[in-house]
């Protein structure tokens, strides 16, 4: 990514020790993000996206967690900061939108209070100013009657409204970096578009960098500058959006792209999916984690793990011994062939 990075993550590992053994959720992730840029993170459920985001923020359960590596935000290593200093940073300079709004919002505190609290703490606003800002924020995220929403408890809002409240809380203090974990999951298409537009506008306005974690590739396709694909706690491919979609190198990325249902496809068409399931996070392999599900796997893949290495395209890196041939992909690529595919009922 160009420009001096606002965030630089190097060789981040996060492991949980459980009574069944060590769960390796994040395994040596390195990435950087420039000021005002957007990094999309996609990957299968359980691939470690949420744990990665939480590790960056240092928001992990306190017991039985092992984190190593460095997270440098504006020249400070967050992993070396004391909790008190961290708390001051969060909300004000870095904010996070959580995947599960119900557990992230305080269920017994009125929505209004949750927003104004952060404004008053970080920006030292008066009660009255904080309230006005809160109304403005809720209006910006498209809550129909913000005054009323302020007096409600999270449980009284629909799933989508809770999500928007989360976003309002996160944006309250104009952070420099926003980590958004599935910010639009659960929102319908029109609201999703609105919320993403809003995030993008605010981002430009405030020059805010954003890490957009999502399982919906459609969300990041047109909005992220760079997209990272995670598999089993590692980044297996990272590239500028266009390059990733037009010429994915790693078979897993290709599989993901191929699984996207399209509105132009006839109903009850069998969807394409990647066979098999992700590896047991307890197992430690020495080869490519995707090998058991990969149609291109050979002996080498099982013995040796491919490193994340650059391709010919600038900024495009992938981890695969036998990458896909760009041409071959182009022919059958769903993104490039939005017209009806014939029914593939098995």
């Amino acid at each position, binding site marked *: 990514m160009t420009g001096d990075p606002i965030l630089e993550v190097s060789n981040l590992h996060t492991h949980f020790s*459980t009574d069944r053994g060590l*769960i390796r959720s994040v395994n040596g992730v390195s990435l950087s993000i420039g000021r005002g840029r957007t990094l999309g993170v996609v*990957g*299968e*459920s*359980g*691939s470690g996206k*949420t744990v990665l985001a939480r590790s960056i923020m240092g928001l992990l359960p306190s017991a039985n967690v092992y984190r190593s590596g460095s997270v440098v935000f504006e020249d400070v290593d967050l992993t070396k900061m004391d909790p008190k200093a961290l708390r001051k940073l969060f909300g004000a300079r870095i904010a996070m939108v959580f995947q*599960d709004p*119900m*557990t992230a919002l305080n269920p017994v505190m009125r929505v209004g209070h949750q927003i104004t609290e952060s404004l008053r703490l970080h920006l030292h606003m008066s009660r009255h100013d904080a309230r006005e800002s809160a109304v403005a924020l809720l209006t910006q995220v*498209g809550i*129909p009657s913000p005054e009323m929403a302020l007096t409600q408890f999270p449980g*009284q*809002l*629909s*799933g*989508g409204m809770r*999500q928007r409240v989360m976003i309002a809380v996160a944006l309250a203090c104009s952070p420099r970096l926003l980590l958004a974990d*599935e910010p639009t*999951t*659960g*929102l*319908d*298409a*029109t*609201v*999703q*578009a*609105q919320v993403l*537009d809003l995030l993008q506008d605010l981002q430009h306005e405030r020059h805010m960098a954003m890490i957009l974690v999502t*399982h*919906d*590739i*459609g969300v990041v*396709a*047109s909005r992220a500058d760079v997209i990272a694909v995670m598999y089993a706690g590692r980044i297996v491919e990272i590239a500028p*959006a266009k390059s990733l*979609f*037009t010429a994915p190198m790693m078979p897993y990325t290709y*599989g*993901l792209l191929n*699984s*996207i*249902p*399209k*509105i132009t*496809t*006839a*109903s*009850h*068409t*069998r*969807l394409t*999916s990647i066979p098999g*399931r992700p590896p*047991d996070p307890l197992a430690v392999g020495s080869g490519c984690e995707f090998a058991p599900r990969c149609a291109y796997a050979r002996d080498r893949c099982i013995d040796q793990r491919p490193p994340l290495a650059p391709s010919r395209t600038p900024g495009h890196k992938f981890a695969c011994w036998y990458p896909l041939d760009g041409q071959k992909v182009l022919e059958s690529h769903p*993104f*490039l062939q*939005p017209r009806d595919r014939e029914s593939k009922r098995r």
Partner: protein
Amino acid sequence: MTDLRVVVGRGRRRVTAVAGVSFSIFPGETLGLVGESGCGKTTTARAIVQLEDIASGSVVVDGIDLGELDRGSLRLLRRRVQMIFQDPISSLNPRRRVRDIVAEPLNIWNIGSKSDREETVVRLLDAVGMDPESTLDRRPGEFSGGQCQRISIARALAISPNLLVCDEIVSALDVSVQAQIINLLEDIKAEFGLTVLFIAHDLAVVKAISDRIAVMYLGRICEIGPSDTICGEPAHPYTNALMASAAPTSLDTAPKTTRLPGEPPNLLNPPQGCRFSNRCPRAKDRCHIEEPQLSECGKDHLVACHFPTLAKTDDLRS
């Protein structure tokens, strides 16, 4: 399983979340339900599974009006109707092990011997793409959102219900697992003759699985019809807008700039006349006065609009 009819109206803080909704789901059918966030999809679903009190109207399952049943018969009926929730993480008990969570309905209904139950649990976990061996003794907190969702699907399928109500069950899943789950549902449906009400906000996903789709706006159904018709030739302006803002299918298509004007209206104070009239690009005087009723506009195709699109629409998508 015959005709299921739902007419719900509910007042809470004077909010009527669902204001007179009627539709039928036929045996073996999958009905998709889409609509703006907060329009009352979850409330409708909760009414069907009796988790929400019904202010007026009725829910009829297999010809039996749920409102007229005593507690005992309701309990029996509930076994035939299972719901999977939007929020997987908080709908699972964090203190219990996966094996007990999935077996819970079997225990409640006292189905099978202990070893039968164990077997069923293993089979179901396998069916939803989880490795039984490494999951059985873990607790929900150790799983990702998507993994929790698969566990709750396994739980709902444990007692082979007739009607399965799925509220945004794939919204939290990545595309590949989403595809697996949808294919799985299609298989299970075929195998057990299951009837499904499938709620989601992603039109492409809903279309993939549904025979018919109902579109909801502000507590009412505004259009209902065969999936291909709803997605290909939507008649209601709101459905049109939904289609237009669906994620771009091609990379080169910039994010769609056609956005609905205005704010989603307030349930406390719905617009006069047609509920969509304050945002509808096609609204005329009549729309602000008279509320349109669902009426036939094509084969099995109902729309609630005074000025529906009847001819094939322009392709708004690309």
